[in-house]
C-alpha cells in the first residue's frame, strides 16, 4: 500500500478551498457512550454473570468491523467486480485463525471428558446449504451488507441500510416462523459432518487449514492475473 505517498493532485482553485463545515467535537459523546456501555455491562452482570462477556465481545467485534472496514460482502463480491481479493484473503486468514481457536476449545473440552461446546451448530450439509448460501449472497450484495455489515453501517448512521435492517428482521422472523418445516423436509435430508469424527482432531485441523490455504493462493493468483491483463 502506498497510502502515505502524497500524489499532490492539482485541483482547480474553486474547489480546493471550499468553505468547510466545522467538525463537531465528538469527544463528549464518545465518553458518554463508553460510560453508558460500562453501566449497561454492569447491569447485565447483575442479571446473569455470563452476559457482560457477550456484551464486551459484541462491542469489540463491532468496533473492529467498523475500524478495519472489514466486509464479508465485499470479500465475495470484489473478486468479480474489481478483481481485488484483499478482503477475500483477510476473511480466509480470519477463518484459519478461528479454525485453530475453535479446535483448541473443542479439543480442550473433549480431553477433559466434558461435553464439547457448540456441537449443536454441526448441522446437516446438503445442496440446500449451497442454494441458501447463493441466495444469501445475492441478497447481501443488493442490500449492501451481510448481517454484521448492515448492523455496523446502521450504527454509522448510513440511513439507506436502515431499510436493509428492517427487511433483514422481517426476513429473519419469517424464516424463524417456517424453520420447523424446512428443517423437517429439507435440512434433515442432509448429513451432519463433524470433521474430527472422520479425520481425527489433528487431521481435521490440517485438512481445513490446507483448504483455506489453497483458497488463499487461488485468491492471490486471481488478483495478479487481473493485474497482468
Amino acid at each position: 500500500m502506498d497510502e502515505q505517498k502524497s500524489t499532490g493532485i492539482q485541483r482547480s482553485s474553486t474547489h480546493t478551498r471550499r468553505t468547510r463545515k466545522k467538525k463537531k467535537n465528538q469527544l463528549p459523546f464518545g465518553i458518554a457512550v463508553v460510560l453508558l456501555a460500562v453501566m449497561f455491562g454492569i447491569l447485565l452482570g447483575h442479571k446473569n454473570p455470563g452476559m457482560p462477556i457477550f456484551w464486551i465481545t459484541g462491542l469489540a467485534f463491532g468496533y473492529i468491523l467498523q475500524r478495519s472496514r472489514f466486509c464479508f460482502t465485499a470479500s465475495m463480491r470484489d473478486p468479480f467486480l474489481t478483481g481485488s481479493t484483499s478482503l477475500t484473503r483477510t476473511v480466509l486468514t480470519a477463518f484459519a485463525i478461528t479454525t485453530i481457536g475453535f479446535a483448541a476449545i473443542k479439543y480442550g473440552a473433549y480431553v477433559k471428558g466434558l461435553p464439547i461446546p457448540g456441537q449443536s451448530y454441526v448441522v446437516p450439509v446438503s445442496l440446500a446449504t449451497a442454494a441458501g448460501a447463493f441466495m444469501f449472497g445475492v441478497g447481501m450484495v443488493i442490500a449492501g451488507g451481510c448481517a454484521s455489515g448492515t448492523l455496523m453501517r446502521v450504527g454509522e448512521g448510513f440511513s439507506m441500510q436502515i431499510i436493509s435492517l428492517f427487511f433483514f428482521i422481517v426476513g429473519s422472523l419469517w424464516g424463524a416462523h417456517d424453520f420447523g418445516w424446512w428443517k423437517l423436509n429439507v435440512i434433515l435430508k442432509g448429513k451432519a459432518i463433524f470433521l474430527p469424527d472422520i479425520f481425527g482432531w489433528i487431521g481435521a485441523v490440517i485438512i481445513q487449514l490446507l483448504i483455506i490455504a489453497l483458497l488463499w493462493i487461488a485468491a492471490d493468483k486471481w488478483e495478479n492475473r487481473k493485474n497482468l491483463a
Partner: protein
Amino acid sequence: MKEVELDCLGEACPIPLVKAENKLKEMEIGDVLIVQIDHSCAMKNVPEWARKEGHNVEIEEIDDGEWEIIIEKVK
C-alpha cells in the same frame, strides 16, 4: 484539465465504485474525478481499485463520515 464531481452520497457499497468506473472511462488523461461518498465500505474499495488501475488517488474527510476521493486519470 477537466474536473468532474460525482455525487454518490447515500449510495451503498458497490454503486459508488461502478459509477466511478464508468465515469472515469469517459474522461481524458489528466482529468480529475472527485467522488463524494458517505459509505465507509466505498472508502476502501474505490481507492483500492483506482490505485490498482494506476491512477493517482487522494482521500479527504470533508465531514464526519463524509469523504471525497480524488482520482487523477493517468492512463
